[in-house]
């Protein structure tokens, strides 16, 4: 019984900077079974229609991380994305190179920025002078301790998260979701000698620049859930020492604000988050906001049923957090 075939119209980004005047799209239409991976289709195009189509690929089983690209505008692994649902939803398959990385040619990007950010976090176990490795024996570690790594060991460094991240686009200082998930992996490792130093350092090196949009988690083909690991890092960072960065003060102030009134006191939030210099600098913006929305600068009254909110806080506090500060 021959498998059912579908028409899959492809529009593939083509560009060689310095050679081509501008990016363009090549059009190909293939007839393939709907479960065909996008990578298989692109390699078929390479082998049979256009050998100059340029992309990175290797394992074709979502473990080497080579083939991340935009499939109908979403950061995806081409090998793990099937053509059927894409055609059904969009009528065609538009392929672009990843975002936030300069194009070398077609779908191949220069990834140095991605790797540099990862290396900057010093991703290697640091010796613990108080607890040397047992001689000739593995470190004991329980299954529960292994579970604390969460999904981070699954990361294949494909950079789909980095491509999907608006904070990376907006701020060159932001380490990006993958690097932070990697950092988390070292912070929770009972063998690492410097988890506290790592947490304190990242406080001022971009941890709080995450926008909590969760697009990284949505893009991740390995379910690493980088945004959840960034959230965990923030919680651990706040517990590691008194909130010092604007970002960490903001998160603590936000929480206490709601706890005391059940509604956000924006003006108070700003005062609790920013230092005096930052406050002065933001005065013009403050006046603008007041002109448009005067209610923001008024101190709000506690909501009715405040006790309900406070009960929720009590519940949250008593349940504790999974992540303890090292």
């Amino acid at each position, binding site marked *: 019984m021959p498998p059912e075939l579908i028409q899959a119209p492809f529009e593939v980004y083509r560009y060689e900077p310095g050679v081509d005047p501008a990016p363009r799209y090549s059009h190909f239409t293939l007839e393939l079974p709907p479960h065909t991976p996008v990578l298989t289709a692109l390699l078929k195009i390479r082998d049979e229609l256009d050998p100059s189509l340029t992309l990175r690929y290797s394992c074709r089983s979502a473990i080497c991380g080579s083939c991340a690209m935009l499939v109908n505008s979403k950061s995806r692994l081409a090998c793990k994305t099937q053509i059927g649902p894409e055609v059904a939803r969009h009528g065609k398959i538009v392929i672009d190179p990843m975002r936030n990385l300069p194009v070398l040619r077609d779908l191949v990007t220069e990834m140095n920025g991605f790797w540099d950010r990862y290396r900057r976090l010093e991703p290697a176990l640091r010796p613990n002078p108080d607890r040397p490795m047992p001689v000739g024996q593995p470190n004991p*570690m329980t299954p529960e301790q292994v579970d604390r790594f969460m999904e981070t*060991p*699954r990361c294949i460094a494909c950079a789909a998260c980095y491509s999907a991240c608006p904070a990376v686009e907006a701020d060159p200082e932001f380490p990006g979701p993958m690097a932070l998930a990697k950092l988390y992996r070292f912070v929770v490792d009972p063998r690492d000698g410097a988890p506290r130093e790592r947490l304190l350092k990242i406080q001022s090196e971009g941890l709080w620049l995450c926008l909590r949009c969760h697009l990284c988690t949505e893009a991740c083909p390995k379910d690493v859930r980088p945004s959840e690991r960034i959230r965990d890092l923030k919680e651990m960072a706040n517990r590691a020492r008194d909130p010092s960065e604007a970002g960490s003060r903001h998160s603590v102030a936000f929480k206490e604000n709601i706890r005391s009134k059940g509604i956000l006191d924006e003006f108070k939030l700003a005062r609790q988050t920013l230092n005096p210099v930052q406050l002065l600098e933001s005065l013009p913006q403050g006046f603008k906001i007041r002109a448009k929305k005067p209610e923001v600068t008024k101190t709000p009254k506690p909501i009715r049923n405040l006790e309900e909110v406070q009960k929720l806080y009590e519940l949250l506090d008593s349940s504790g957090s999974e992540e303890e500060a090292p």
Partner: protein
Amino acid sequence: MQRHDVIVVGAGLAGQRAALAAIHAGVDVGLVSKLHPLRSHSGAAQGGINAAVGAEDSVETHIYDTVKGSDYLGDQDAIEFFCHEAGPTVVEMEHFGTIFSRAPDGSLARRPFGGAGFPRTIYAADRTGLALLQALYERLGTERFTVYEEWQLTRIVVSGGRVQGIVAYDRRRGDLAEIGAKAVIIATGPAGRIYGRTTNAHACTGDGVAIAYRAGALLKDMEFVQFHPTALLDSGILITEGARGEGGILKNSHDERFMTRYAPHVMDLASRDVVSRAIVTEVQEGRGFPDGSVHLELMHLGREMIESRLQEICDFSRDFAGIDPVTQPIPVTPAQHYMMGGIGTTTRGETNVPGLYAAGEAACVSIHGANRLGGNSLLETLVFGKQAGEAAAEYARKTGPSELADTDLDEVTGVVHGMSDRADGADPARLRTEMQSCMDRWVGIYRRPEELAQAARTLLDLKERFRSVHVADRSSVYNVNLTDALETGHMIDLAEVIVAGAIARTESRGAHARVDYPRRDDTNWMKHTMAQSTPEGPALSYAPVAFTRWEPKERVY
């Protein structure tokens, strides 16, 4: 021109471990890899790494299982050394930061694997290779050395009776460059893409093995090609032996657990050659499913166990086959998986060419002999990667500076430009596809003399057509068309050696099963095949197998 004491080619586990050892020995190291190191195929290894660390297990049993698994073609002195290194190697990787799965008491968790007397395979869920690769990469990253990332080896320069360096192609810029080295370590891994149906990544094209062969290195036991019993039907994507180690069973279309007939004692956990032949036999005798598969059943293990210990397998089956292993059997058939053969080396990674070393799947020590046991290849990369790194550093320290003339660079440049300058010629993708279907059809699990002869003729024809291979893409940036052509040339050379060895070896041993010679022939064939490159094709000679304490016996599982 760049110069290093030691150049390591390939940045998977063997290459990185070799680089680390050479750096620790105090020499200057260059690491050349056509992929970013974290993209290496070592990361795709799923099941685990063997070390006899359990109280009930022993190094002695590991040695015996490996000797038996090799169908007595493994060198016993090398196997003894290898198994003794297993424990310390795993401990070192744990100290480097590998996140292994754990038993409730905090020790390293172990699972049973094929051909092993005890649960001996230490693992990190079903992504052990990735866990090791990440930890080693991160450890190596704390050292000082030079990385040539996305540079592809095109030639090993040998003159004056020793290695002088390499010529390599920068994939991102299109430059060819000569890099001087006193010693070169080849750790370029598998060549599985010689076959169409393979578990191997697209990058596994045997570049280093073919280039070492052209540089005069002897290739050993190349006819022994491992077919993994359980690969997904359409894509050939690997389903780890760990799935059977955790209790998965194989069934035919009569709902029979057919391995009871082929390996009554250990059934689904017999060694890979045995299970692969059993599957092919079932299908050929009409007990396969209509799509030509048999079924791997995991359903009885329960959702929690499947989703925690076989997480990647779950994803693979769902994403690439549309099968949920929690509720459905997985249709599988064998696929090319591993080359037991490779560049012939000593246990220190030395080859017959002074200054040339090899380790990992690219090498053949031989510890796997005619059939490799699951869980031994990750161990091999680390044990012999370290040995090769130390030996190459030692050699480099007592060797004078490399001397390079531009002859080799000019020659390679001429060849590469010739491929794109000619107006027309053979399409590399077409040659590759024809080679792959030739090997799939005629050089598979069961080998017939007339089919092997047909394969040899086809390969000669492909080799001839390759002389006029035409690269249509003229760009200097990331020219995959060009690297595809170079790789196809490498693979055709290696395929020729595989077929020559298979035609000559008139016996059945391990993974080499000749239908016209169904029995092992220790009188005539207890020896390693050694292939040397000549203008007329591979010239075969034979070398003795090293025996210490284990007398050959019939293999029963």
